[in-house]
Every structure is written in structure tokens, then in C-alpha cells.
């Protein structure tokens, strides 16, 4: 009798502990989807019991936003503005455009949502990218400038004809912000979205560790120059390797300077932005690339705590802003930009 009691008192708790151990070692359910939208390859990975439905909803949301923001979809308000010169914007699109215009003002036009005529002139909307005739480029450039846009209530118009919008500089970041918010509303606490070069993570990894996000090496785009460890954060890179063509040994990339109408020649190869907002990270990665290292560093100093950045110069040197110390790791040497 005593022996049986001992067996019950020792073996059963031990068995229970082992079963709990087995349970703890089980994986959190997850679901992933790979798809194309916004002219790029996207991956959404969601953890949790509701992952399958959440991934499906996220994919649908991003595809809806693609149609809503596309300048090639005749149903979109931005297409209608580009063809008719004016349009009544929905509240959602108006709010997004106001965000774009605020960013344009803050960066003094380094980010400009009216860059479309220049991008079209270089053929970056199609397969036939080319160096444009100078006269054609100057004509296109004359129609660029966010200050030409006028908003009266919901009515968007411009003070000269031929002004066109392209919100592609913030569309993917906006989509990841909206998707993350929708996931939060569903109760999801752990997810990672990779929309082209735009990454946005929700919460931490299952188990509580930070997400590890690689930063593409612009000199070897198949590899990475380092990683950042983040949670609830967007990480967005703009670089010369993403879209370009070469002619006579010169690379012409897709990040245009609205001052010159040419691909920005700022001494940088890539800029990665780390901040909680995907929209801001997306717009700033373009703007700071156009600014160049010195001006971008000064801009960062005027926005304490808003974002951090990783810069790679044409010499292959890496600079990070001070907020990324302890967050960024790399086997290569790098310099820290002080506040």
C-alpha cells in the first residue's frame, strides 16, 4: 500500500511534468502567404491560433490598397487625378496624401509625391527604361513640385496643368501600417510582413525574442551587411540596387531627385530607416537618400526619437544613427552618428 502511494506521489507528477515539457516544446501555429502586389513580391507570416484567417485578410487588404493607390488602375482616385487634373478624394486617400505632403514639406521636397512626370520620362513605369532627351526631361521637371497641389475640402487640384501624383514612395509603408493595425484588431500579437524592401514586425517572435531583420548590402544585394533586432517596428531600405538600368557602364537607379530630374547622386548607395511607422520609414528612406549623408544626419538630429537610420556610402562605408547602438550588429566596421 505504501509502495503504491509512493508510485502515485512520485511517478504521476513526473509524468505530468514531462507532458507539460512536451507541450511547451510544441510550435505556435503559424501561416504564411507569398504573393505579388504593388509591383513587388510580398510575404506575410502570422503566428497564433487565428493565423490562417489573419493571413488571408492581410493579403486581401494589401491587394485592395494596391488597387486604391495605383496610378494605373482607372478606378483609383489618383489615376483620375492624373488624367483629369482634379478629383474628389475619399477621406482615407486625403489623409494619406496629407501625410505625403507633410513629409514633403519636412524634407523640403527631398520626398516629393509629384515626381511622376520624371519617373515616366525615364521609362521606369515600363520595360523600356532609357535616358531621356534633355528638353523632354526639363518639360517633365516643370510639372514636378508638391507646392502645385491644392486641396479645398475633398477636392484635389493643381495650379498648373500636367501635375501628376505617384504615392509609390510611401504606398508599401502605408500598406504595412494598415495591415499591422488590422492584425492587432484581430488580436494577433506576432507577425512579420515583408513587402519588397519594406519590413514591418508586429510584437516579438513567439517565445518573446526580438525579430532579426537583415539589412541588404547594396554592393552585394544577395547578401546582407548586418542585422537589426526589433519588435513593433518598420525597417525600410531604399537602394540603388532595387530598380535600375545601365548604359555605357553607368547605373541609372529609380530614386529621383526632384530638383534635377536625375537619379539622386548623393554619395549614398542605400538608406535603411527604422521607426514604428511603415509610412514614415518608407518616405524617409527615399528622402534621406536624396539628401545625402551630411544633410540626412542633420535632419535626423532635428527629429529626436522619431527614427533611426543606416547609411551605406558609395565607398562602402556604413554609418548608423546613435539610436541603433545595441540594435544593429555587423561583422563589418561602422561609424555612429552622434545626436
Amino acid at each position, binding site marked *: 500500500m505504501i509502495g503504491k502511494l509512493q508510485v502515485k506521489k512520485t511517478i504521476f507528477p513526473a509524468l505530468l511534468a514531462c507532458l507539460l515539457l512536451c507541450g511547451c516544446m510544441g510550435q505556435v501555429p503559424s501561416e504564411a502567404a507569398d504573393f505579388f502586389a504593388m509591383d513587388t513580391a510580398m510575404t506575410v507570416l502570422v503566428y497564433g491560433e487565428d493565423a490562417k484567417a489573419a493571413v488571408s485578410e492581410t493579403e486581401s487588404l494589401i491587394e485592395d490598397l494596391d488597387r486604391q493607390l495605383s496610378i494605373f488602375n482607372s478606378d483609383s482616385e489618383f489615376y483620375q487625378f492624373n488624367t483629369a487634373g482634379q478629383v474628389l478624394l475619399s477621406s482615407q486617400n486625403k489623409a494619406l496624401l496629407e501625410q505625403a505632403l507633410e513629409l514633403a514639406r519636412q524634407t523640403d521636397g527631398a520626398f516629393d509625391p509629384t515626381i511622376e512626370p520624371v519617373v515616366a520620362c525615364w521609362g521606369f513605369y515600363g520595360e523600356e527604361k532609357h535616358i531621356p532627351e534633355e528638353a523632354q526631361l526639363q518639360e517633365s521637371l516643370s510639372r514636378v513640385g508638391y507646392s502645385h497641389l491644392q486641396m479645398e475640402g475633398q477636392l484635389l487640384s493643381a495650379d498648373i496643368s500636367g501635375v501628376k501624383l505617384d504615392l509609390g514612395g510611401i504606398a508599401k509603408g502605408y500598406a504595412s501600417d494598415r495591415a499591422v493595425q488590422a492584425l492587432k484588431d484581430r488580436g494577433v500579437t506576432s507577425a512579420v510582413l515583408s513587402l519588397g524592401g519594406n519590413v514591418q514586425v508586429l510584437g516579438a517572435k513567439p517565445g518573446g525574442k526580438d525579430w532579426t531583420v537583415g539589412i541588404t548590402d547594396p554592393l552585394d*544585394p544577395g547578401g546582407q551587411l548586418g542585422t537589426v533586432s526589433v519588435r513593433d517596428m518598420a525597417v525600410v531600405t531604399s537602394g540603388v540596387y532595387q530598380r535600375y538600368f545601365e548604359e555605357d557602364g553607368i547605373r541609372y537607379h529609380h530614386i529621383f531627385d526632384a530638383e534635377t530630374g536625375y537619379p539622386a547622386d548623393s554619395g549614398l548607395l542605400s538608406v535603411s530607416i527604422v521607426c514604428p511607422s511603415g509610412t514614415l520609414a518608407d518616405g524617409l528612406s527615399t528622402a534621406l537618400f536624396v539628401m545625402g549623408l551630411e544633410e540626412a544626419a542633420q535632419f535626423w538630429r532635428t527629429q529626436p526619437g522619431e527614427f533611426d537610420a543606416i547609411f551605406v556610402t558609395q565607398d562602402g562605408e556604413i554609418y548608423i544613427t546613435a539610436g541603433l547602438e545595441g540594435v544593429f550588429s555587423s561583422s563589418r566596421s561602422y561609424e555612429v552618428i552622434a545626436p
Partner: protein
Amino acid sequence: MKTRSWILLFVLLMALCAGVLLLRPRPQGQTTVCIYQDGQLLETIDLSQVEAPYTIPLTWKGSTNEITVSPGSIAVTWADCGCQTCVNHGPLQPGGMPIICLPNRLVIKWVQDPVVDAVA
């Protein structure tokens, strides 16, 4: 009786530990890549099991990518797309961007990247 109980307990614990070790989720896919076209999974290849190089021609809407699979390595080695970004990407690297051919909607990526959760 007490000794027999402890022996029984020991044997059961050993059996359970062995079960946990055998059945626990293992890190899978760290050498395995997936080939997707237009979001559809076409092929899964464990690069550690590849013994000799071979090529996979993939045609999509009249355009072609040629993928070369070697022991431990995969790359797009030829494409008739205009940008050649997929060819210039070189071999798929741990911790690096997936190989993407936007015109032909082709993606080659690790099932589970051994280094990072995503790449920006």
C-alpha cells in the same frame, strides 16, 4: 517495493525524454529552398541533398528563367527578362534577399532562413 518504484520511474522518464527528443519540432528548411511563380509553390529542394548540378527551365507567359541547382547552392543563371535583376542577384545566401524576378513573377527563398526573419 520502493526500489522497484524508483526503477519504474527512471525507465518511464527515460522513455518520455526519448519520445520528446524524437518528436520535438526540429529546425527544418534551413538548407531547403522553395521556388514560387506567381505565388504558387512549384518546387521544394533540399540543397544539402543535391549531389550534382542541374538546371530547371521555367517559362511563364512566354518568358524564361533558367535556375541552376548545385550542391548547397541555387541561382538564376539566365533569364530573358529586361532587367536581369534575378541573374545579377547571384546565388541565394543565408540572411540575404530572396531571388526575385518581378517580370516573370518568380521567387526563390529559404523555407526557413537560418540567419534572419526578414530582409529590408
